[in-house]
């Protein structure tokens, strides 16, 4: 076959389109694969190797996990270490060792060259300590001390685990008090302060009103006048409640101090790679494991428990350690709120455009405008949200309803509600467009059938049109969720913070606190990846968080898609 006729046959076109699709699939899978591999590897309890290596600077001993291996060219090698030109070889393998022990043996990540390694072994007794601060520590157990005195079964691994378990229990108790009762008492105290402030404002208003009413004042006797004009509010009841709360607070604080005292009881001594003995308070240790001794089953169990910790716990150490629970919670809550806001808004707008408005150039213009709104850069929505929602609407709400709290803003500051609203605004065009599309797919014969039975237009909308449009509405919501869950830029202006002290939902009335700032996985990724002081330590978390964000979006989408398909099956055959 000649080239000309081959081109004419259309085959090249098929090949071209197919390879474009192939390239897309490879790109997506590659991206997901990279994120998944890097993110998931982080939780695996890797073996700890002990190394002795020698270079022109001297001889070193090191223990740690090999987190990365790569081969570099001679040029790169020379660039990295210019005074080692006497070493032969065209390529060099180098390892990144996570040696931990920050604070007493820095740095905690270092590159070493394979050819410099003199000796390499795995010590069965090597323990990895996950510390509350400063990352991991690596070493062998020398002694356990209770209140300064060495205890008998000093080297027992089980003893260590028991004591770590005890510390964890104490720590949980402390957290419960801190986040539970103390948080509640603080909240109530703040409410009391606001109540007193409200009374002050009311009293000031009363006096100001009286002063304006000269006529009435002139009729009063001097004594009466000065009595009425004196600032006088009843605060005895507030004082009483405040006193009670403060007493309670004192009690809780005492309990807390007691727990902290108990936490300080135990201390361990470990021997680190270079032979030094270091003592660590047990309260600083979260977990300890002996990777070189673990069976594969134990490793798998450890792996999943690490993932669980990642999902269910607060972050520590400027977000570079610990879990992402608050960010996870914030993301899901914000997306759900956004969906709740955007759905009615978008559907109602689409109903008007398609069912009520007289079709013509004006409606067409609105439609084009709505479509284009979807293309506005998201940061613009952030700026709009900040200017309009927060300063204007939020400021007015504060002036009207939260005067007592001023000058501290309540709604006049970034928060969950404004973030959800801003994203709702950002995604509303998607919902409008797909709802409209759904409405056009409903045959007019069904609308007429309903009207011919004596239904009004509104009844027809609610009983026939809306149910039949529901799959398309859901499609719109799916697209909206997909867009909103991944959006970060506008959120930075309207409510997301690096570290939120409390979750937006808690046990204090009204339970859902729309005015609170919240954490978000997308912003978390940015923060951990680019704002953290320890990039090497944070990198795996960036991947893990990214993977989590992708999984959440997929999960939210799958839920909506299943729902949509189920609805669509019901109306299949009736739609155009």
């Amino acid at each position: 076959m000649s080239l000309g006729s081959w081109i004419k046959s259309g085959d090249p076109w098929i090949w071209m389109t197919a390879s474009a699709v192939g390239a897309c699939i490879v790109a997506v899978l590659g991206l997901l694969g990279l994120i998944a591999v890097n993110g998931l590897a982080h939780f695996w309890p890797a073996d700890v190797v002990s190394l002795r290596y020698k270079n022109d600077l001297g001889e070193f001993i090191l223990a740690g996990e090999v987190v990365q291996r790569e081969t570099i060219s001679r040029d790169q090698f020379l660039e990295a270490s210019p005074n080692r030109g006497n070493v032969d070889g065209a390529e060099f393998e180098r390892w990144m060792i996570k040696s931990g022990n920050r604070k007493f043996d820095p740095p905690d990540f270092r590159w070493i060259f394979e050819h410099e390694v003199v000796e390499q072994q795995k010590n069965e007794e090597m323990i990895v300590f996950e510390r509350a601060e400063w990352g991991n520590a690596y070493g062998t157990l020398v002694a356990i001390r209770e209140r300064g005195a060495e205890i008998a079964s000093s080297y027992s691994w089980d003893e260590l685990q028991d004591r770590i378990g005890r510390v964890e229990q104490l720590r949980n108790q402390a957290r419960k008090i801190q986040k539970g009762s103390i948080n509640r008492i603080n909240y109530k105290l703040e409410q009391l302060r606001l109540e007193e402030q409200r009374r002050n404002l009311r009293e000031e208003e009363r006096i100001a009103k009286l002063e304006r009413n000269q006529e009435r004042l002139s009729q009063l006797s001097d004594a009466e006048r000065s009595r009425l004009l004196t600032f006088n509010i009843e605060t005895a009841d507030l004082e009483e409640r405040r006193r009670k709360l403060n007493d309670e607070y004192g009690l809780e604080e005492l309990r807390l101090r007691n727990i902290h005292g108990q936490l300080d009881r135990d201390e361990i001594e470990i021997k680190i790679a270079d032979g030094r003995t270091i003592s660590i308070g047990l309260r600083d240790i979260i977990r300890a494991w002996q990777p070189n001794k673990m069976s594969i089953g134990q490793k798998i169990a450890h792996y999943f428990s690490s993932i669980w910790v990642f999902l269910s716990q607060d972050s520590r150490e400027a977000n570079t350690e610990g879990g992402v629970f608050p960010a996870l919670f914030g993301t899901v809550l914000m997306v759900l709120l956004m969906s709740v806001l955007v759905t009615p808004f978008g559907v109602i707008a689409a109903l008007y455009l398609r069912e009520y408005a007289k079709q013509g150039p004006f409606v067409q213009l609105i439609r084009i405008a709505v479509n284009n709104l979807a293309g506005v850069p998201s940061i613009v929505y952030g700026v709009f949200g900040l200017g309009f929602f927060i300063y204007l609407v939020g400021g007015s709400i504060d002036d009207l309803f939260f005067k007592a709290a001023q000058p501290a803003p309540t709604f006049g500051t970034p928060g969950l509600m404004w973030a959800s609203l801003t994203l709702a605004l950002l995604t509303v065009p998607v919902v409008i467009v797909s709802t409209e599309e759904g409405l056009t797919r409903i045959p007019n014969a069904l609308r007429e059938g309903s009207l011919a039975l004596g239904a009004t237009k509104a009844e027809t909308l609610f009983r026939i049109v809306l149910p039949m449009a529901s799959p398309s509405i859901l499609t719109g919501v799916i697209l909206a969720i997909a867009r909103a869950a991944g959006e970060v830029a506008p959120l930075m202006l309207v409510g997301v913070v690096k570290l939120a002290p409390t979750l937006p939902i808690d046990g204090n009335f009204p339970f859902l606190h729309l005015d609170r700032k919240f954490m978000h996985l997308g912003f978390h990724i940015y923060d951990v990846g680019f704002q953290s002081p320890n990039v090497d330590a944070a990198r795996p978390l960036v991947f893990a968080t990214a993977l989590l964000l992708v999984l959440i979006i997929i999960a939210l989408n799958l839920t909506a898609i299943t729902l949509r398909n189920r609805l669509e099956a019901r109306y299949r055959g009736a739609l155009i």
Partner: protein
Amino acid sequence: MNQNDQESRDLRRVNLDTTLVESSETLDPNELPDEEICLNVSSLSLHYGEALALKDISMKIPRQRVTALIGPSGCGKSTLIRCFNRMNDLIDGVRIHGRIELDGTEIHDRNVDVAQLRRQVGMVFQRPNPFPKSVYENVAYGLRLTENLPKSELDDRVEWALKSAALWEEMEGRLKESALGLSGGQQQRLVIARAVAVKPSVLLLDEPASALDPLSTLKIEELIAQLKSDYTIVIVTHNMQQAARVSDYTSFLYLGELIEFDSTANIFLNPSKQQTEDYITGRYG
């Protein structure tokens, strides 16, 4: 006109004659007493924007009889029948002049509730349009809109409506099934049941059998014969045999004008207008 033509026309006549035997005793509709008139149309004109679709139509549609509207495609049959329950109100740019009285009340009056009117004047369309709901819910749809019936009464009404539409036997065990799974003929009878359920006094049928197979068509025709004792029926059809079989009165429309309105027997056996005769003998297809 040659010999052959004449013969074939006579043959058609004979065919029609046999179907017309029963209904031949009906009277001239224009001479009926007022109380036997259900819909009284006088000087009705309708414009779609600038286009004139109905031109000065006057006819008296008798109560509890079947009146057929025939005429070539595009002559305004659907437009006319849709005037009777004001379905044309839904179309932008429609202007209507003239009067339509239902039992003596002008249906375009300001104080007429359109929804109420449509419950009184039920309509069945050319293509079956069951709602994507269960058989039961389709029939109950109109009832749920206004009458707040208890469950048992609702069940009874649904059963009664399905029986009226000769569908009960087939549907008795399938009430919960989706109406979309029924055959075309069943769907059309379901739609009739749905219209009958709200107890209208008039039923408008716009080519109810044109999308159906012959057997289903037959069933619909039998159904019309049953229903006419309780309802005033107006049926649009392009099938003249059908008009002859089911109707008592027939009106012939042509290009938006009412050419002739008379008892079906007269229209088919003894038309007074040349155009009517040409049409029923097949001159305009």
